[in-house]
Structure formats: C-alpha cells, structure tokens
C-alpha cells in the first residue's frame, strides 16, 4: 500500500511542479497567495474565550480556559500558559485517538512559542498571589478538518480566541467582575513549503503531503521575527530563509487585520 502511495506522491509532485513552473497552483492560487482566512470569535460559550478559524477548508476551533493554580517555582509572579493540540481522528483519516504524537506536540509548541515569545499576554497580570496562586491559561486547539497548514490556522484561531477572552473572576475567585484578558501583541505565523526548488505560501493538503521542507515564521506587528520552525527532511538556503521571512511579514500583515476586525 505504501508503494502505491509512493507512486501517487510522485504523480502529484510532478503535477504540482508543472503547474508551479507557470506560477500556478492546483486550487487556482498564485505561489505567494494565502487561502481565504475567516475568523469567528466567541463560538463556544463554555470557554473563557474561543474562536473558530478557517484557512481554506482547514477548520480549527480554539477554546481558552482559565483556572487557578500554582506558578512555576522559577517564576512565582507569572501566570502559566499551557498550549495543547488535539489532532482528533474526525479531522483526518491519518489522525488517531490516543496521547499526542510528535506532530501534535511540535504543532502545539510552535504555536505556544509564537504567543509566548511575543509576550502576547501580560503573564504578570495573571499572578493572584505571588508564589502561591496564579491563573493557568489553557489554549486548547481542536482541529476539526485538516486540509493543509495546521501551523498557521492554529495560530490564527489561538490569537483570535485570546483577544476574545474574559478572565473568569466572578466564577473562579467568587468576587469581582470578569475583565477582558487583553492582548499586548499580535504574533502571526506564515508557513511556506518548499517542493523541488519552489516555495509555496500556505501549503494546501496536497502540498503538505509532498513538501520537501517547511518553514514557519512568526512575526509581530512591528515586523520583528518572534519564532521560527523549520520542518521536514529537505533543506533551505540562506537566501530562501530570508525570502520566506519577507513573505511572512507581508502576508502576516493582512491576516493580522482580519483577526483584529473579526
């Protein structure tokens, strides 16, 4: 069966490369075009914040939950951010039930780094009692439909959910009014895949499957690079990396606007 898959891969690959030689892609996009992004904030009322993001047909639901817990010993005055990804088997025939596999862990960690390193949330505001009690901020990324490029869709849904989050002071501290969590920065990731020598912004499902190398670059509203993750067995040249950073900055700006206005 795997042998057939290999053959199918080869066919897909030549087809994609032939189109790309003319600057085209299977779904009609240009090489540097992202699929349409749509953001629906506040999808789930039981969450402190939530958003559903679609990137083409990739469909991701993120819920933010907040609980009271203990800080890490080495940061007694900061809340705790926990990012988790569920690649539920409903989203793809390739996902299986069970504990998160390396791909889900990588995805969660890359999204987490983007948010954490950009200081998206003021974690010091989430300290209730130094060294004793802080807010735990759970970002739960639930993939509903996988059609390529989970890194970016997860990042968009997570960021949108954070902008939509109310700190549940009334129910969890029993006293006071819920206030918006607030977001200080807007880290936006853009992923570019390489097939042969060609770069594809926002890889589709088919492009994801046959890509040689992948680079996710997260930039903030100032255009600074805040996180990067290279994946897969292929390689990039220095020039390609620099070009991808610039593509990420350009595309990221548009997405940031979409998220803000959603």
């Amino acid at each position, binding site marked *: 069966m795997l042998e057939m898959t290999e053959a199918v891969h080869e066919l897909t690959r030549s087809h994609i490369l032939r189109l790309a030689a003319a600057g085209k892609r299977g779904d009609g996009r240009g090489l540097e075009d992202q699929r349409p992004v749509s953001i629906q904030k506040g999808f*789930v009322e*039981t969450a402190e914040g939530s958003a559903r993001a679609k990137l083409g047909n990739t469909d991701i639901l993120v819920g933010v939950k907040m609980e009271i817990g203990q800080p890490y010993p080495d940061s007694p005055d900061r809340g705790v951010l926990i990012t988790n990804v569920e690649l*539920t088997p*409903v989203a793809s025939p390739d996902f299986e039930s069970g504990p998160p596999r390396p791909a889900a862990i990588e995805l969660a960690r890359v999204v987490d780094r983007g948010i954490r390193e950009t200081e998206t949330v003021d974690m010091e505001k989430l300290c209730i009692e130094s060294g004793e009690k802080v807010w735990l901020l759970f970002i*739960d990324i639930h993939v509903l*439909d996988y059609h390529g490029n989970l890194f970016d869709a997860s990042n968009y849904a997570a960021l949108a959910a954070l902008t939509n989050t109310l700190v549940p002071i009334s129910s969890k501290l029993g006293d006071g009014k819920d206030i918006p969590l607030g977001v200080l920065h807007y880290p936006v990731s853009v992923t570019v895949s390489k097939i042969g020598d060609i770069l594809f912004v926002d890889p589709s499902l088919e492009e994801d499957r046959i890509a040689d190398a992948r680079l996710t670059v997260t930039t903030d509203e100032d255009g600074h690079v805040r996180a990067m993750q290279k994946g897969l067995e292929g390689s990039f040249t220095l020039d390609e990396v620099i070009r991808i950073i610039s593509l990420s900055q350009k595309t990221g700006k548009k997405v940031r606007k979409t998220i803000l206005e959603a």
Partner: protein
Amino acid sequence: MVKKLKLIDSKGLRMDGRKPDELRPIKIEAGVLKRADGSAYLEWGKNKVMAGVYGPRECHPRHMQNPAKAIVRCRYNMVSFSVDDRKRPGPDRRSTEISKVAGEAFSSVVFGEQFPRTSIDVFIEILQADAGTRCAGITAASVALADAGIPMRDLVAACAFGKVQGKMVLDLDKEEDNYGEADVPLAIIPRTEEIVLLQMDGSLTTKELQQGLKTGIDACKQIYQIQKEALKRRYAVILEEEETTEGDA
C-alpha cells in the same frame, strides 16, 4: 446550603418556558466537514456537536476485524472547553461508557454484512455541553452516517426524558439534570420504535417509566423529522453542486 431552585412554575412551565413534553430548539446541518466521509453539525438548546464518519475502511488494528461484517466503532469526546471546568483531554470513564453504548446503538441499524473486515468509525465531538449531550451526539452522528452513504435500515434518533420536582419532563437541560430526580437517555429506530439505547439513573415507578418511554418515543420521532430535513437539504446541495460541476465540464 444549596438554595432549592424552582424548576417548574405554577403553570407547569419550565425555567426556559418549555412545556413538560417540549423539546429544546434543534438545528442540524449535514455535510459540514470536507475530510470526513460524512458529517453533521447539530445545535440542540445550548449543546453544540460535530459528528463525523469515516468508512467503511480497512479495520485497524487487524485483530479487531470481523470476517463476517463491518464493525461499527464510536468515539464520543467532550472537548476540553465544552464544560465550565476545563476537562482534561482524552477519554474518561464516562465517555468510554457512552462511546460503547452509542456504538452498539449504531450497530443495530448499519448493514455491516456488505463490508466484511472493515470498520465504520463514528466520531462525536461535543463542542459545547448543556445536558443531553449523548442524545445530541447520537442524533447528529446518525445524520453523519447517512451523509457518508453507509447503508442503514433507518436512522437512530435519541432523546432523554426524566423527572423534575415530581413531574415527568422531556429533554432535561443542565439545571434540570442536576436537580432532577431521574434521567433516562433513550435512542430508537423511529420506523419500528425499537429501543437501541436505554440508560437510567434516579428513581421512577414502573408507571412513570412507561409513560416516559411513550413520550420519549414520540419525541424521537419528532427529531427524526428534523434529521430527515437536514439530509434533504444536504442532497439538494449535492445535486446543485453536481449540476454546477457538469455545467463547468
């Protein structure tokens, strides 16, 4: 001290204005996921449910294959943020039990003999939970099975009934479930009224149960209509898409 809520008012109406035998509003949309072979999204009161179906497909692990027919498996899952206190991801004992009985309910309608050694995998994701999630999930998944083109003798429709402050009521919401005296999830094959899922906890007399089961069966038949309408809308869309495609060609 827990303040006793008044769940049924002097006119016999419930907190959300429903009559004892009235269902919460239900909306179903079929064919909402692209990757799954069939899918349905359902809103039932405040419940939000996504169901998806894959199959018939080669069954893994192999030792679970049945050479005589397809096996039907179900995974009922509450998303971590679907409830007030975050639920740890992954199956707990409650969802394992629900997955088991729901899977058995679907097995009773699927014609599995046509697909030996395969599995039909049903996934129920509770995105937002009020009470009655297992009935909502079964109702949605049944539409997803039909959307996937799985041959079945009929859909399965599900609804709970119970007893709240002395009164038999249909389709309990969260408050009613928490403070009520009994909860009875029920799933039937609407055409034949066969009972394919039945659970109960609380306290009921035989007479109350008998009355409740009758009301529950009627409610499942109402739900059946909503399921069929969702499928009709879905087929209309598919036909339209096919025509468009042909037009393109």
